[in-house]
Structures are given as structure tokens and as C-alpha cells.
């Protein structure tokens, strides 16, 4: 690691060692427990052998999803119908759908919802567009892996890291000074002498934040769509070519219909990610300057301004918006599996 050659004060090194030792202990302990359970249960024979094995293998997973997903989801739905203001509050009572009514009538939340819908329409469309364009361009290219990796790389970068990276693109300095932001530099070279302070200019800032998300998601779309394009049987492409189809026409009449299912699945997958976008908006300007989205406002309601029930209502709205998308994806995946 890069830290090795730097003079580190002993307390830091000690703390690091303690932390990592704890990790080794935990992982080692976990595997040791598993080994013991396997050894003891392995003694069992006869009629009980299979039921015991089922419980040992399936039990932990079922326990974890029940405790971590099923019960919390039900609790959150329940919370969203109450007037809870903070965690552990006594004297809460059911107030019906008032939190939902609030979400859809409060002007600030209304704006948040509209903005989230804008994200949902623009980001997946453009990410899929770039991804598909890229997949088509490199389909028959030599050394395709180099430009592909360049576009795919941001997939590995956290939203926080991406926000920092793009801070150097959107940074604003008074036009008379030397510029530090790439975008200002470029538009000034192109003749726009007084560019705005990008990230606090409404509504431009929302779209600039969307660009970051598109930058991250395009690689994912490219990889999946590229694989789908490769999956079209050569004979189909060949016979279409013999019929005189090439370029745009080949693309429009043969390739697009053949990968339509994949296109929609990629679109909905990016939509699901976009719906939950939180990190970018949170890091760049914490939802200020009219950039707030559903997932960030929900986080703030729950953990910053202590309006647990209102936040829970937003979480349920998010859940209801995601459900049809996931359902559609699962159905498509199962159908494709059956065909294969």
C-alpha cells in the first residue's frame, strides 16, 4: 500500500494493526464456527442427516433475510403510517396516509419528486444511448478492449470518488483568474467569456450532476449490450447483408429488434440505480441549490432532521416505484432462461 513509505506515527500504525487484527479474528472465528458445526453435524447419520443439513445450510441465510429485509420492510411501512419524529419516541399514533399526503402536497417534496422523475427519464436514456453507440462502434474493431475499458472504468469508481473527480471539471473561478475547472476553461476558450458558477446555477446544476451518473452507468450498458450484439447469430447478420442492409439500416431493422429485450432490461436496471441515487447529490452540494432527489431527502428526513415517519413514507414511495421495474426485469430474465 501507498502508506508504507510514509513516516506514520505509532498510534496510527497501532490503531490500524488493532483494526486489521480484529478482522482476522472475526473472519477466522466465523470460519472456525462453520467448521465445528460441519464437523459435529457430519456425525449425524440416517433419517436425520438431510433435515439437519438443510437447517445448517439454509438457516443462516433465511435468518439474515428475515432480520435484515423482511421485518425492516414491514416496520418501515408501519412507521410511514405513524407520527414518529425520532427513534424510540414514546406516544406515537397512527395518522393514516397523512405522511403520503404531505409528500405529494409539500412544495419542496413535490419539487424533489419532479426532479427525481427527470433523473429517471434522462439518465437511463442517455447512458443506454452512449453504451449502445459504443457497443456498436467497437463491435468489429481491432483492439476494442482499450476504448471499452476506458468507458467501463468509471463503473469501479464510487459515487463519492466520481463527485470528487468531477469537482475538477465543474470548479468555478472568477473569469479574471486562471481557471481550475476544465469546463470553464473549455467554454472560455470557445469564446464564452463569463461562464456561470456551474454547480449553484439552477437548473443547470441538476443536469450537470446527471452527467456524472451517465458517466458511471454508460460502461455497464455498453458491456451488457455489447454481449447481446455478439449474441446475434452470424447467419442473421450475413443474410441481412446479402439483402443489402448495412450501416444504419442493418442496425435499425435487424440489430435493434434482436436485442430489444436486453435494451429494456439495461434501461430498467439503470433506472433502479438512478432512483436510489443519493451519494452524488449528497456529496456535491447536499441537495442544496435545488438539486435534492428522493433518496437524499429521505436520508435527511430519517437521520438529520428527525422526521422518521415522513422519511419512511418516502422510502415506501421509492419501494413502490422500484417494484414494477424489478418485477419486469425478473420476468424477462426468467423468460430468456427458458428460451435457452
Amino acid at each position, binding site marked *: 500500500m501507498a502508506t508504507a513509505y510514509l513516516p506514520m506515527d505509532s498510534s496510527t500504525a497501532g490503531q490500524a494493526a488493532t483494526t486489521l487484527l480484529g478482522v482476522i479474528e472475526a473472519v477466522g472465528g466465523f470460519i472456525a464456527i462453520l467448521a465445528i458445526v460441519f464437523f459435529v453435524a457430519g456425525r449425524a447419520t440416517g433419517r436425520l442427516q438431510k433435515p439437519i443439513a438443510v437447517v445448517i445450510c439454509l438457516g443462516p441465510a433465511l435468518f439474515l433475510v428475515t432480520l435484515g429485509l423482511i421485518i425492516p420492510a414491514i416496520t418501515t411501512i408501519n412507521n410511514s403510517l405513524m407520527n414518529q419524529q425520532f427513534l424510540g419516541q414514546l406516544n406515537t399514533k397512527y395518522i393514516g396516509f397523512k405522511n403520503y399526503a404531505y409528500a405529494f402536497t409539500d412544495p419542496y417534496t413535490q419539487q424533489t419528486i419532479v426532479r427525481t422523475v427527470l433523473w429517471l427519464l434522462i439518465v437511463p436514456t442517455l447512458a443506454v444511448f452512449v453504451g449502445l453507440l459504443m457497443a456498436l462502434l467497437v463491435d468489429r474493431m481491432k483492439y476494442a478492449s482499450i476504448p471499452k475499458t476506458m468507458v467501463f472504468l468509471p*463503473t469501479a469508481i*464510487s459515487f463519492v470518488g466520481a463527485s470528487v473527480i468531477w*469537482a475538477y471539471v465543474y470548479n468555478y473561478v472568477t473569469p479574471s483568474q486562471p481557471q481550475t475547472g476544465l469546463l470553464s476553461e473549455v467554454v472560455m476558450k470557445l469564446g464564452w467569456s463569463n461562464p456561470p458558477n456551474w454547480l449553484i446555477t439552477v437548473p443547470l446544476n441538476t443536469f450537470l450532476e446527471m452527467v456524472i451518473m451517465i458517466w458511471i452507468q454508460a460502461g455497464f450498458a455498453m458491456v451488457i449490450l455489447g454481449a447481446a450484439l455478439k449474441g446475434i447469430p452470424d447467419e442473421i447478420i450475413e443474410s441481412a447483408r446479402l439483402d443489402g442492409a448495412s450501416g444504419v439500416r442493418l442496425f435499425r431493422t435487424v440489430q435493434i429488434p434482436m436485442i430489444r429485450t436486453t435494451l429494456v432490461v439495461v434501461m430498467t436496471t439503470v433506472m433502479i440505480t438512478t432512483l436510489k441515487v443519493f*451519494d452524488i447529490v449528497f456529496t456535491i452540494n447536499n441537495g442544496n441549490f435545488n438539486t435534492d432527489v428522493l433518496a437524499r431527502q429521505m436520508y435527511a428526513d430519517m437521520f438529520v432532521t428527525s422526521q422518521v415517519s415522513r422519511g419512511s413514507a418516502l422510502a415506501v414511495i421509492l419501494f413502490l416505484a422500484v417494484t414494477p421495474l424489478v418485477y419486469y426485469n425478473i420476468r424477462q430474465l426468467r423468460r430468456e432462461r427458458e428460451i435457452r
Partner: protein
Amino acid sequence: MTTTTRPPVKVQQPLTGKAAVTAVRKAFSGSLASAAAVLIGVIWTIPTFGLFVNSFRSREAAATTGWWEFFVHPSFSLSGYNEVLTGQGGLAIPLVNSLAITIPATIIPIFVASMAGYALAWMRFKGSDAIFFGIFALQVVPLQMALVPLQQYYVHGLQIFGITVLPSPGINGTIAQIWLTHTMFSMPLAIFLIHNFIAQLPSSLMEAARVDGAPHLRIFRSIVLPLSMPAIASFGIFQFLWVWNDLLVAKTFGGTSPDMQPVTARMQSLVGSYGAHLDLLAPAGFLTIVIPLIVFLSLQRYFVRGLLAGSVKG
């Protein structure tokens, strides 16, 4: 890969007239397409490249001029990295924390999920299909829905109608609750990916082992686990990147002290305080992304395989 290098030598006789024009246009569009692809690739890389360059410039230069000035007035310094790593509240401890969070949160789900995947695929019992699709369908639950109730569980234990059903695990305020949270949230995808792979192992292999009298647990340990390594690798990389890059869980369960935070959470608070320090933001940002980038670049093949196996991360 078979379609990438098909030479366009279908027609051997010399072309004339319209056919020649078409052929030329086709060849041109081929290299034009490549040029466009490279152009997009370069545009996609410029922002990261800028961060990279800036992180190695002298702090004064990085604070006052754009990174492209490096090619006109080069300056090189590691003092930004030094400050970020050794300074008060810097990134050294958060980097260790990130590792300490990510490694167990990747290894534990692998074991739990492959055990469940084996049980659901090869120990057929009444309702095993229903359980598989039930777990898979849980991908619809956005983790945002689980945050508040989970936090309540970690502090007070699980209570139903005021009765404590399950005591608090006593890990509140430690990174163990981040491991546990990530393990829970990873289950639907992990079981889906690994189950699908295990289910495709040859049944003759399983039959043979069972005829030999091997119990299920031994079949799992000595046959299924070693053979499932490709699926486990795909999921492992997926989970590693997911946990390392996560901010929401870290923010919710990691507390606000730099001693507990992983790099993403620390970085997020530093953007506020380093915001005016463009010189420190770059090395800090680069340290945040460098480990996932290395993992990604060296294991990209497995990652892509995992993506193609149909992943809808909840």
C-alpha cells in the same frame, strides 16, 4: 470475439462504379467508427486523468491553476499525499477501515450464500423452489427501507408489540454492524448468482458422491465449494466493489468519528472541509478510488461474467 476480425474479402474481382464507392465508404466508416470509439473513450477518461495528474502536482500549483497546466509548467510533489495520509483526520485510518469492512463483508456472504445455494439446488424438499424465488424477489426491497428498523434493532433488539423477541446483538457502534448489514443486503443477489451456478453442476457427480455414501455437508465442502469458484469469484468482486464504494450504509451505521469511517464516508465529509483546498482534494480522491480500480482492472473478466449472469442489485 469471432466477429471482430472478419476480413471484407467476399468479392474478389475489381470493383467499379457504385460498388467501388460503397466499398470505399464501408472501409472508411470502419476506421471512422474506430476513431469515434477512441474519442469517446478519451472523453470518458479525461476527468479521472485530470484528478490523477493534479494529485501529483505541487500543492501551490494544484490550488491555483488547472491540471492541464502541468504539461506547460510541470511540477511534481508528493506533499499532498503526505498531508492527506498523515494529517489529522486524514485518510490513513479510513483506508484501513475500508479494508476492515470490505473483507469480512465479502467473505461471510460468500459462505452463507453458497451454503444456501447448495441447499436450494440439490437438497430438494417441499417448498425449496418457493424459498428460492422468495429470496430472489426480496431484491425489490431498497436498502433505504431497512435502515431505520435495522438501526433500532442494533440498539434495542427486535421488539414486536413491545415484547423483545431477539435481544440486541451488542455490536452497536462497532464495524461488526456494518458487516452484518452488508451481509444481509447482499443475500438476494448472492444466492441468486451462486445458486444458478451450483444448479448447473453435473448431476452425475452428485449422484456418484451420494452413492458412495457421502453426506450432504461433505459433498458441499469437498465437491460443490471448489467447483463453484467461478461464480464465487464473480460475486466476490461484485460485493467487494459494492461494499468498498458504499456510502449509505457506512454513513448510517459508521458514526461520524474518522476512527470508524471508511474512505467513502471520510471523503464525503472532506469534500466539505477540503472543498476550498483543491490541492488536497485530488490526492484524497485518488486514494479513495485506487483500490477498487486495481481490483476491477485485474479481475474485470469475472466482474463482467457476474454482470452478464443477470444482476439487479437491490
